[in-house]
């Protein structure tokens, strides 16, 4: 079965929009995906008929809102094939999820029973050279707080991890390995099993940034075997303002708290407090109620379309795009040029034309792409460039839109010719 893209496009009201008098061609889904009407409605309906604060209320609206919120947790647990619903923690985005871990690890220093998560001088934190800043800065700051060493696995000219370096960089001193599943800057899909296996072999905690994987391929956290994994709502066609941290229950149960406040406590005295079990220990304050509910709708929408079919659809788009773009004079693809282990995100440069000019001129033709370092500046540094232009595809992207991009690039080149 393949996707019925025409039908899917009707689910997304914004796709009917015009930009500069021409139809919108939205090729920036890796930055943030558009929202189907069911997701928009899920939030609106909660507010209009079933809204109240969750967990704390015994009244009917409170029970309805709590059932909706906890129901979303069930949906996300199914989406990831988590062993238990309590393994799903709602955050505001994946950046918070990764910071939650980094702060919980440093809080382990003063938390009895959390020895497993303690870091100090001599210990190593390992990432890759292709991380998004959100999976890089939190670990740099953790290294600064604890005195641990910050290391990374380098990438090659094609934008892939140097596999032979994996065993060298991850050593017996490594306590944490955090890496991106699919790179947002390069499109590369990493050898997840190898990285997880190596982390396990040295006794390190493995963490996966699945922000760019979750919208594009089926995820099964039990099969993957990592310790933690996060994704972000707005990239899986869900609302802004909500993300997910999944963690193995036995680890979450020992993990020190991060944010303190309402709902994450067991009991509070002026002289000290004890904390709730997961997931509530990690959900201080009033959560993103309507956003979590709508995220549940979004992941069900994706499951309904079928992640395998989505992957196949996008694989075809990428194949066509790689071929057509390579044929445009002056275009250089930054990242894998073969359609193997790569996702629906293609970065490129155009000789002699700044990425901002490329993106802006494409916008004037209705085509939305991103230009910049894509919050992965070390990747640009690696390839000696300031920025790239990036086109990224989603469930609603058509072959004709890929063609429009290629035509647009011809026009841009003509103007600067």
């Amino acid at each position, binding site marked *: 079965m393949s996707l019925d893209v025409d039908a899917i496009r009707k689910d997304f009201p914004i796709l009917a929009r015009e930009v500069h*008098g*021409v139809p919108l061609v939205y090729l920036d889904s890796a930055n943030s995906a558009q929202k189907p009407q069911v997701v928009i409605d899920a939030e609106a309906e909660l507010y209009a008929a079933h809204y109240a604060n969750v967990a704390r209320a015994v009244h009917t609206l409170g029970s309805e809102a709590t059932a909706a919120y906890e129901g979303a947790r069930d949906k996300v647990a199914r989406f990831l094939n988590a062993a238990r619903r309590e393994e799903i923690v709602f955050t505001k985005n994946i950046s918070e999820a990764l910071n939650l871990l980094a702060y919980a690890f440093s809080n382990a220093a003063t938390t009895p029973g959390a020895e497993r998560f303690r870091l100090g001088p001599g210990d190593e934190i390992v990432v890759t050279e292709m991380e998004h800043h959100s999976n890089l800065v939190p670990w740099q700051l953790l290294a600064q707080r604890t005195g641990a060493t910050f290391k990374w696995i380098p990438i090659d000219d094609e934008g892939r991890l140097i596999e032979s370096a994996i065993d060298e960089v991850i050593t017996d001193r490594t306590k944490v390995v955090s890496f991106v599943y699919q790179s947002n800057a390069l499109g590369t899909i990493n050898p997840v099993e190898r990285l997880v296996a190596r982390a396990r072999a040295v006794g390190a905690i493995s963490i996966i940034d699945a922000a760019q994987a979750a919208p594009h391929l089926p995820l099964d956290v039990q099969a993957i075997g990592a310790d933690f994994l996060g994704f972000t709502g707005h990239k899986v066609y869900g609302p802004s303002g909500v993300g997910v941290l999944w963690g193995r229950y036995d680890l979450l149960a020992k993990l020190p708290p991060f944010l303190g406040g309402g709902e994450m406590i067991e009991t509070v005295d002026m002289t000290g407090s004890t904390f709730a079990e997961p997931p509530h220990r990690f959900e201080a304050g009033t959560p993103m109620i309507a956003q979590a509910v709508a995220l549940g709708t979004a992941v069900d929408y994706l499951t309904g379309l079928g992640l395998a079919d989505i992957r196949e659809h996008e694989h075809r788009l990428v194949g066509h795009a790689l071929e057509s773009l390579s044929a445009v004079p002056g275009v250089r693809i930054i990242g894998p040029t073969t359609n193997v282990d790569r996702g629906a995100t293609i970065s490129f440069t155009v000789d002699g034309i*700044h*990425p901002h*000019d490329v993106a*802006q001129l494409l916008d*004037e033709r209705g085509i939305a792409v991103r230009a*910049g370092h894509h919050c992965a500046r070390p990747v640009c540094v690696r390839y000696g460039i300031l920025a790239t232009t990036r086109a990224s595809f989603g469930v609603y992207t058509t072959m004709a839109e890929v063609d429009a991009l290629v035509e647009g690039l011809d026009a841009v080149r003509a*103007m600067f010719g």
Partner: protein
Amino acid sequence: MSMSAPVDSMYQEIIIDHYKHPQHHGRIEPFDAEVHHVNPTCGDEVTLRVQIGDGVIHDLGWVGEGCSISQASTSVMSGLVVGKPVDEAMRLSETFLALMQSRGENPLDEGELDGLQDAVAFEGVSKYPARVKCALLGWMAMKGAVAEAAGTARGSDAIAEETR
């Protein structure tokens, strides 16, 4: 789709021209001050030298890297201020800033627009807050260099802040 840009394009002919044939490009000698300004959000940069005497900008030269908007705007700015009294250059700079902050609602009177000459072509940029900083980069560098040359209390550091 046609191959030409829409009529309301940010990329007026004049901008592309200046980008391809930048004015006052290069490192002048002698000079009274040199500044280096960077737009951290997109990496555009410009190094700019001025030579000043009797309150007049006698000469100005620059080199830079970045998008057509930042490079063309620096070129247009150079053509406008070289040979002008510092006061007038500062006034022009204020006028251009006002145009850039107008979000597409041009607030200037005819006299002001006349004074800006080619720089009026950047009006379309004001609709894109992310690009406004590109158009301002060269102007801010000029202000910084002039202040540095004048050795005023407002050092170039304080002014560099504004280009962030």
